[in-house]
Protein backbone atom coordinates (compact mmCIF):
# COMPACT_ATOMS: atom_id res chain seq x y z
CA UNK A 1 0.00 0.00 0.00
CA UNK A 2 1.39 3.36 -1.00
CA UNK A 3 0.12 6.74 0.17
CA UNK A 4 -1.84 8.82 -2.37
CA UNK A 5 0.43 10.91 -4.61
CA UNK A 6 1.26 14.35 -3.28
CA UNK A 7 -0.07 13.68 0.19
CA UNK A 8 1.83 15.11 3.14
CA UNK A 9 0.29 12.88 5.78
CA UNK A 10 -1.65 9.68 5.19
CA UNK A 11 -2.89 6.62 7.02
CA UNK A 12 -3.90 3.19 5.78
CA UNK A 13 -5.93 0.52 7.53
CA UNK A 14 -5.57 1.94 11.04
CA UNK A 15 -6.78 -0.24 13.87
CA UNK A 16 -6.77 0.68 17.54
CA UNK A 17 -8.60 -1.12 20.32
CA UNK A 18 -9.08 -0.05 23.92
CA UNK A 19 -9.91 -3.35 25.60
CA UNK A 20 -12.98 -4.68 23.84
CA UNK A 21 -13.67 -1.30 22.17
CA UNK A 22 -12.47 -0.91 18.58
CA UNK A 23 -11.85 2.85 18.48
CA UNK A 24 -10.43 2.56 14.95
CA UNK A 25 -11.35 -0.29 12.66
CA UNK A 26 -9.62 0.15 9.30
CA UNK A 27 -9.64 3.96 9.10
CA UNK A 28 -7.91 5.70 6.19
CA UNK A 29 -6.85 9.31 5.80
CA UNK A 30 -4.81 11.55 3.59
CA UNK A 31 -4.11 15.28 3.40
CA UNK A 32 -2.12 17.55 1.06
CA UNK A 33 -0.09 20.61 2.01
CA UNK A 34 -2.36 23.66 2.28
CA UNK A 35 -5.49 21.53 2.56
CA UNK A 36 -8.07 21.86 5.33
CA UNK A 37 -9.85 18.54 5.96
CA UNK A 38 -12.76 18.28 8.37
CA UNK A 39 -13.11 15.02 10.33
CA UNK A 40 -16.77 14.57 11.22
CA UNK A 41 -18.94 11.86 12.70
CA UNK A 42 -20.92 10.97 15.82
CA UNK A 43 -19.54 11.13 19.35
CA UNK A 44 -17.36 8.14 20.17
CA UNK A 45 -16.86 7.21 16.50
CA UNK A 46 -13.05 7.53 16.71
CA UNK A 47 -12.33 11.07 15.47
CA UNK A 48 -9.98 12.05 18.28
CA UNK A 49 -8.29 8.64 18.22
CA UNK A 50 -7.63 9.10 14.49
CA UNK A 51 -6.17 12.57 15.13
CA UNK A 52 -3.97 11.28 17.95
CA UNK A 53 -2.67 8.44 15.75
CA UNK A 54 -1.96 10.80 12.84
CA UNK A 55 -0.06 13.12 15.18
CA UNK A 56 2.01 10.26 16.62
CA UNK A 57 0.57 10.75 20.12
CA UNK A 58 -1.15 7.34 20.11
CA UNK A 59 0.37 4.26 18.46
CA UNK A 60 -2.16 2.23 16.44
CA UNK A 61 -2.31 -1.57 16.89
CA UNK A 62 -1.85 -1.97 13.14
CA UNK A 63 -1.82 0.03 9.94
CA UNK A 64 0.65 2.54 8.55
CA UNK A 65 0.97 6.28 8.92
CA UNK A 66 3.24 8.09 6.50
CA UNK A 67 4.39 11.65 7.04
CA UNK A 68 6.47 13.34 4.38
CA UNK A 69 7.72 9.97 3.09
CA UNK A 70 8.57 8.59 6.54
CA UNK A 71 6.63 5.89 8.33
CA UNK A 72 5.78 6.96 11.88
CA UNK A 73 5.97 3.43 13.29
CA UNK A 74 9.56 3.14 12.05
CA UNK A 75 10.60 6.08 14.22
CA UNK A 76 11.75 5.94 17.84
CA UNK A 77 9.69 7.67 20.53
CA UNK A 78 12.18 10.50 20.76
CA UNK A 79 12.21 10.94 16.96
CA UNK A 80 8.42 11.12 17.02
CA UNK A 81 8.31 13.72 19.75
CA UNK A 82 10.98 15.75 17.97
CA UNK A 83 8.81 15.61 14.83
CA UNK A 84 5.77 16.75 16.82
CA UNK A 85 7.66 19.75 18.14
CA UNK A 86 9.18 20.78 14.81
CA UNK A 87 6.46 19.97 12.26
CA UNK A 88 3.10 19.74 14.05
CA UNK A 89 0.89 22.26 15.82
CA UNK A 90 -2.04 21.51 18.14
CA UNK A 91 -5.24 23.27 19.21
CA UNK A 92 -7.79 21.62 21.46
CA UNK A 93 -11.29 22.48 22.63
CA UNK A 94 -10.05 24.21 25.75
CA UNK A 95 -6.96 26.22 24.86
CA UNK A 96 -4.79 24.43 27.43
CA UNK A 97 -2.64 27.46 28.10
CA UNK A 98 -0.15 27.29 30.97
CA UNK A 99 -1.85 29.29 33.75
CA UNK A 100 1.40 30.53 35.36
CA UNK A 101 2.67 32.12 32.13
CA UNK A 102 1.51 35.33 30.47
CA UNK A 103 -0.16 35.06 27.07
CA UNK A 104 2.96 36.04 25.16
CA UNK A 105 5.03 33.55 27.17
CA UNK A 106 2.47 30.87 26.33
CA UNK A 107 2.69 31.61 22.62
CA UNK A 108 6.49 31.74 22.77
CA UNK A 109 6.71 28.46 24.72
CA UNK A 110 7.02 26.04 21.75
CA UNK A 111 9.94 28.09 20.38
CA UNK A 112 11.59 28.19 23.82
CA UNK A 113 11.21 24.40 24.09
CA UNK A 114 12.91 24.12 20.71
CA UNK A 115 15.86 26.07 22.16
CA UNK A 116 15.04 29.57 20.91
CA UNK A 117 16.18 32.64 22.89
CA UNK A 118 13.56 34.45 24.94
CA UNK A 119 13.82 37.64 22.90
CA UNK A 120 13.50 35.95 19.52
CA UNK A 121 10.73 33.64 20.69
CA UNK A 122 8.66 36.50 22.10
CA UNK A 123 9.16 38.60 18.99
CA UNK A 124 7.82 35.76 16.80
CA UNK A 125 5.04 35.18 19.33
CA UNK A 126 3.93 38.81 19.09
CA UNK A 127 3.78 38.65 15.30
CA UNK A 128 1.36 35.73 15.55
CA UNK A 129 -0.61 37.41 18.31
CA UNK A 130 -1.06 40.43 16.05
CA UNK A 131 -2.37 38.21 13.26
CA UNK A 132 -4.82 36.60 15.65
CA UNK A 133 -5.72 40.07 17.00
CA UNK A 134 -4.72 39.34 20.61
CA UNK A 135 -1.42 41.23 20.87
CA UNK A 136 -2.96 43.62 23.41
CA UNK A 137 -3.32 40.67 25.81
CA UNK A 138 0.40 39.91 25.85
CA UNK A 139 0.94 40.71 29.55
CA UNK A 140 -2.24 39.01 30.82
CA UNK A 141 -2.46 35.55 32.27
CA UNK A 142 -4.90 32.99 30.80
CA UNK A 143 -7.25 33.40 33.79
CA UNK A 144 -7.59 37.11 32.92
CA UNK A 145 -8.81 36.67 29.32
CA UNK A 146 -12.14 35.44 27.87
CA UNK A 147 -12.64 31.98 26.39
CA UNK A 148 -12.61 33.33 22.83
CA UNK A 149 -9.47 35.40 23.47
CA UNK A 150 -7.75 32.44 25.13
CA UNK A 151 -8.59 30.25 22.16
CA UNK A 152 -7.02 32.76 19.77
CA UNK A 153 -3.93 32.83 21.95
CA UNK A 154 -3.87 29.02 21.71
CA UNK A 155 -4.16 29.22 17.91
CA UNK A 156 -1.26 31.70 17.83
CA UNK A 157 0.77 29.26 19.94
CA UNK A 158 -0.06 26.37 17.61
CA UNK A 159 1.19 28.33 14.59
CA UNK A 160 4.28 29.98 16.07
CA UNK A 161 6.60 27.17 14.97
CA UNK A 162 5.26 27.35 11.38
CA UNK A 163 3.97 23.77 11.54
CA UNK A 164 3.47 21.77 8.35
CA UNK A 165 0.39 20.15 9.88
CA UNK A 166 -2.02 21.77 12.32
CA UNK A 167 -4.17 19.37 14.37
CA UNK A 168 -7.33 20.98 15.73
CA UNK A 169 -9.77 18.93 17.84
CA UNK A 170 -13.04 20.85 18.27
CA UNK A 171 -11.15 24.16 18.36
CA UNK A 172 -14.39 26.15 18.58
CA UNK A 173 -16.25 23.70 20.83
CA UNK A 174 -16.27 26.01 23.83
CA UNK A 175 -17.07 29.23 21.94
CA UNK A 176 -20.26 30.97 20.80
CA UNK A 177 -21.00 31.25 17.05
CA UNK A 178 -19.41 34.65 16.50
CA UNK A 179 -16.18 33.83 18.36
CA UNK A 180 -16.08 30.37 16.84
CA UNK A 181 -16.31 31.75 13.33
CA UNK A 182 -13.68 34.39 13.99
CA UNK A 183 -11.31 31.71 15.29
CA UNK A 184 -11.99 29.58 12.20
CA UNK A 185 -11.41 32.52 9.85
CA UNK A 186 -8.14 33.47 11.50
CA UNK A 187 -7.00 29.86 11.80
CA UNK A 188 -7.69 28.94 8.16
CA UNK A 189 -6.29 32.25 6.83
CA UNK A 190 -3.12 31.74 8.83
CA UNK A 191 -2.78 28.10 7.76
CA UNK A 192 -3.37 28.94 4.09
CA UNK A 193 -0.79 31.71 4.18
CA UNK A 194 1.87 29.24 5.38
CA UNK A 195 0.59 26.32 3.23
CA UNK A 196 0.08 24.22 6.36
CA UNK A 197 -2.31 21.27 6.25
CA UNK A 198 -5.13 21.38 8.81
CA UNK A 199 -6.79 18.29 10.32
CA UNK A 200 -9.96 19.75 11.80
CA UNK A 201 -12.11 17.54 14.04
CA UNK A 202 -15.58 19.01 14.43
CA UNK A 203 -19.20 17.92 14.68
CA UNK A 204 -20.47 21.34 13.62
CA UNK A 205 -21.34 21.78 9.95
CA UNK A 206 -20.81 25.53 10.08
CA UNK A 207 -17.26 24.94 11.30
CA UNK A 208 -16.67 22.19 8.74
CA UNK A 209 -17.74 24.68 6.05
CA UNK A 210 -14.30 26.28 6.48
CA UNK A 211 -12.69 23.05 5.20
CA UNK A 212 -11.94 22.00 1.64
CA UNK A 213 -13.48 18.55 2.10
CA UNK A 214 -14.73 16.27 4.84
CA UNK A 215 -13.98 12.75 6.02
CA UNK A 216 -16.71 11.06 8.03
CA UNK A 217 -15.75 8.60 10.79
CA UNK A 218 -18.34 6.07 11.91
CA UNK A 219 -17.66 3.05 14.14
CA UNK A 220 -13.92 3.49 13.63
CA UNK A 221 -14.21 3.40 9.85
CA UNK A 222 -13.62 6.44 7.70
CA UNK A 223 -15.40 7.60 4.61
CA UNK A 224 -13.82 10.16 2.34
CA UNK A 225 -16.83 11.99 0.97
CA UNK A 226 -15.00 13.52 -1.96
CA UNK A 227 -13.43 10.30 -3.17
CA UNK A 228 -16.59 8.35 -2.39
CA UNK A 229 -18.62 10.31 -4.97
Amino acid at each position, binding site marked *: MTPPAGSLLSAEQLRKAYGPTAALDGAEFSIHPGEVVAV*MGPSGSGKSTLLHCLAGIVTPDSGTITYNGHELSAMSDSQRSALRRSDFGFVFQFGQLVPELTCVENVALPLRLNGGSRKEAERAALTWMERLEVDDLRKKRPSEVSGGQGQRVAVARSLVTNPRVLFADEPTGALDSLNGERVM*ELLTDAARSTNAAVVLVTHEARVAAYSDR*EVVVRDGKS*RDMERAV
Partner: protein
Amino acid sequence: MSIGHTLLGLLESGPRHGYDLKRAFDEKFGHDRPLHYGQVYSTMSRLLKNGLVVVDGVETGGGPERKRYAITDDGITDVQRWLATPEKPEPYLQSTLYTKVVLALLTHRDAADVLDTQRSEHLRSMRILTDRKRKGDLADQLICDHALFHLEADLRWLELTAARLDKLREAVAR
Protein backbone atom coordinates in the same frame (compact mmCIF):
# COMPACT_ATOMS: atom_id res chain seq x y z
CA MET B 1 -39.53 36.46 -1.53
CA SER B 2 -42.30 38.68 -2.88
CA ILE B 3 -40.81 40.84 -5.63
CA GLY B 4 -43.95 42.99 -5.76
CA HIS B 5 -43.78 43.90 -2.08
CA THR B 6 -40.05 44.50 -2.27
CA LEU B 7 -40.35 46.86 -5.23
CA LEU B 8 -43.25 48.63 -3.53
CA GLY B 9 -41.15 49.06 -0.41
CA LEU B 10 -38.34 50.55 -2.47
CA LEU B 11 -40.82 53.09 -3.91
CA GLU B 12 -41.81 54.30 -0.45
CA SER B 13 -38.75 56.52 -0.25
CA GLY B 14 -39.72 58.34 -3.50
CA PRO B 15 -40.71 57.83 -7.15
CA ARG B 16 -38.29 55.87 -9.36
CA HIS B 17 -37.93 54.68 -12.93
CA GLY B 18 -38.16 50.97 -13.69
CA TYR B 19 -34.44 50.62 -14.38
CA ASP B 20 -33.65 52.49 -11.19
CA LEU B 21 -35.89 50.08 -9.23
CA LYS B 22 -34.11 47.08 -10.73
CA ARG B 23 -30.74 48.51 -9.80
CA ALA B 24 -31.82 49.21 -6.23
CA PHE B 25 -33.33 45.73 -5.91
CA ASP B 26 -30.24 43.98 -7.25
CA GLU B 27 -27.97 45.99 -5.03
CA LYS B 28 -29.88 45.29 -1.83
CA PHE B 29 -31.60 41.95 -2.36
CA GLY B 30 -30.43 40.46 -5.63
CA HIS B 31 -27.23 38.75 -4.42
CA ASP B 32 -28.61 35.36 -5.35
CA ARG B 33 -30.31 36.29 -8.58
CA PRO B 34 -30.65 39.74 -10.09
CA LEU B 35 -34.05 40.68 -11.53
CA HIS B 36 -34.75 40.54 -15.24
CA TYR B 37 -36.13 43.73 -16.77
CA GLY B 38 -39.13 41.67 -17.86
CA GLN B 39 -39.86 40.78 -14.22
CA VAL B 40 -39.73 44.44 -13.22
CA TYR B 41 -42.10 45.56 -15.96
CA SER B 42 -44.59 42.71 -15.47
CA THR B 43 -44.58 43.31 -11.71
CA MET B 44 -45.06 47.06 -12.13
CA SER B 45 -47.96 46.63 -14.54
CA ARG B 46 -49.65 44.31 -12.04
CA LEU B 47 -49.12 46.85 -9.24
CA LEU B 48 -50.50 49.59 -11.56
CA LYS B 49 -53.60 47.54 -12.33
CA ASN B 50 -54.19 46.95 -8.60
CA GLY B 51 -53.83 50.66 -7.84
CA LEU B 52 -50.78 50.20 -5.61
CA VAL B 53 -48.63 52.47 -7.82
CA VAL B 54 -49.30 55.24 -10.36
CA VAL B 55 -47.27 56.54 -13.27
CA ASP B 56 -45.80 59.77 -12.04
CA GLY B 57 -44.16 60.91 -15.26
CA VAL B 58 -42.88 59.62 -18.59
CA GLU B 59 -39.48 60.43 -19.99
CA THR B 60 -39.50 60.46 -23.76
CA GLY B 61 -36.16 60.58 -25.47
CA GLY B 62 -34.26 58.77 -28.16
CA GLY B 63 -34.70 55.34 -26.55
CA PRO B 64 -37.79 53.49 -25.33
CA GLU B 65 -40.28 55.41 -23.21
CA ARG B 66 -39.36 55.30 -19.54
CA LYS B 67 -42.08 55.45 -16.90
CA ARG B 68 -41.54 56.83 -13.46
CA TYR B 69 -43.60 55.10 -10.75
CA ALA B 70 -44.89 56.41 -7.42
CA ILE B 71 -46.47 54.43 -4.58
CA THR B 72 -50.13 55.09 -3.63
CA ASP B 73 -51.67 55.08 -0.13
CA ASP B 74 -53.07 51.63 -0.89
CA GLY B 75 -49.54 50.60 -1.83
CA ILE B 76 -48.16 51.79 1.48
CA THR B 77 -50.91 49.91 3.35
CA ASP B 78 -50.02 46.80 1.37
CA VAL B 79 -46.34 47.00 2.32
CA GLN B 80 -47.31 47.52 5.96
CA ARG B 81 -49.57 44.47 5.93
CA TRP B 82 -46.85 42.35 4.31
CA LEU B 83 -44.27 43.38 6.90
CA ALA B 84 -46.68 42.68 9.77
CA THR B 85 -47.54 39.17 8.56
CA PRO B 86 -45.09 36.41 9.60
CA GLU B 87 -43.78 34.02 6.92
CA LYS B 88 -44.98 30.47 6.95
CA PRO B 89 -42.15 28.17 8.08
CA GLU B 90 -41.27 25.99 5.10
CA PRO B 91 -41.32 22.32 6.10
CA TYR B 92 -41.00 20.83 2.63
CA LEU B 93 -37.25 20.07 2.71
CA GLN B 94 -37.63 18.34 6.07
CA SER B 95 -40.41 16.17 4.77
CA THR B 96 -38.36 15.11 1.75
CA LEU B 97 -35.35 14.28 3.92
CA TYR B 98 -37.54 12.51 6.43
CA THR B 99 -39.07 10.44 3.64
CA LYS B 100 -35.61 9.44 2.45
CA VAL B 101 -34.40 8.36 5.90
CA VAL B 102 -37.56 6.39 6.61
CA LEU B 103 -37.44 4.80 3.19
CA ALA B 104 -33.80 3.83 3.68
CA LEU B 105 -34.72 2.04 6.93
CA LEU B 106 -37.79 0.42 5.41
CA THR B 107 -35.75 -0.96 2.52
CA HIS B 108 -32.92 -2.05 4.88
CA ARG B 109 -30.49 0.46 3.46
CA ASP B 110 -28.10 2.48 5.60
CA ALA B 111 -29.82 5.61 6.87
CA ALA B 112 -26.35 6.92 7.74
CA ASP B 113 -25.60 6.90 4.01
CA VAL B 114 -28.48 9.24 3.34
CA LEU B 115 -27.17 11.46 6.10
CA ASP B 116 -23.57 11.47 4.85
CA THR B 117 -24.60 12.14 1.26
CA GLN B 118 -26.95 14.92 2.25
CA ARG B 119 -24.38 16.43 4.60
CA SER B 120 -21.85 16.43 1.81
CA GLU B 121 -24.30 18.23 -0.47
CA HIS B 122 -25.26 20.71 2.24
CA LEU B 123 -21.59 21.33 3.03
CA ARG B 124 -20.93 22.10 -0.61
CA SER B 125 -23.46 24.95 -0.40
CA MET B 126 -22.21 25.97 3.02
CA ARG B 127 -18.63 26.28 1.75
CA ILE B 128 -19.74 28.60 -1.04
CA LEU B 129 -21.76 30.70 1.41
CA THR B 130 -18.88 30.79 3.91
CA ASP B 131 -16.50 31.92 1.21
CA ARG B 132 -18.89 34.64 0.05
CA LYS B 133 -19.34 35.74 3.63
CA ARG B 134 -15.59 36.10 4.14
CA LYS B 135 -15.23 38.28 1.07
CA GLY B 136 -18.46 40.23 1.43
CA ASP B 137 -19.72 43.25 3.32
CA LEU B 138 -21.96 43.19 6.38
CA ALA B 139 -25.15 42.74 4.31
CA ASP B 140 -23.60 39.73 2.55
CA GLN B 141 -22.59 38.29 5.89
CA LEU B 142 -26.08 38.57 7.35
CA ILE B 143 -27.74 37.06 4.29
CA CYS B 144 -25.24 34.20 4.14
CA ASP B 145 -25.53 33.55 7.88
CA HIS B 146 -29.27 33.11 7.55
CA ALA B 147 -28.80 30.52 4.82
CA LEU B 148 -25.98 28.84 6.75
CA PHE B 149 -28.00 28.47 9.95
CA HIS B 150 -30.87 26.97 7.99
CA LEU B 151 -28.68 24.46 6.22
CA GLU B 152 -27.10 23.55 9.53
CA ALA B 153 -30.52 23.11 11.11
CA ASP B 154 -31.48 20.66 8.34
CA LEU B 155 -28.37 18.63 9.06
CA ARG B 156 -28.80 18.59 12.81
CA TRP B 157 -32.37 17.54 12.44
CA LEU B 158 -31.45 14.82 9.96
CA GLU B 159 -28.68 13.55 12.23
CA LEU B 160 -31.02 13.34 15.19
CA THR B 161 -33.71 11.69 13.10
CA ALA B 162 -31.31 9.07 11.77
CA ALA B 163 -30.08 8.28 15.30
CA ARG B 164 -33.60 7.99 16.64
CA LEU B 165 -34.96 5.91 13.81
CA ASP B 166 -32.11 3.47 14.29
CA LYS B 167 -33.27 2.88 17.86
CA LEU B 168 -36.85 2.71 16.74
CA ARG B 169 -36.04 0.09 14.13
CA GLU B 170 -34.24 -2.04 16.71
CA ALA B 171 -37.15 -1.75 19.12
CA VAL B 172 -39.64 -2.72 16.45
CA ALA B 173 -37.55 -5.66 15.27
CA ARG B 174 -37.23 -7.06 18.80
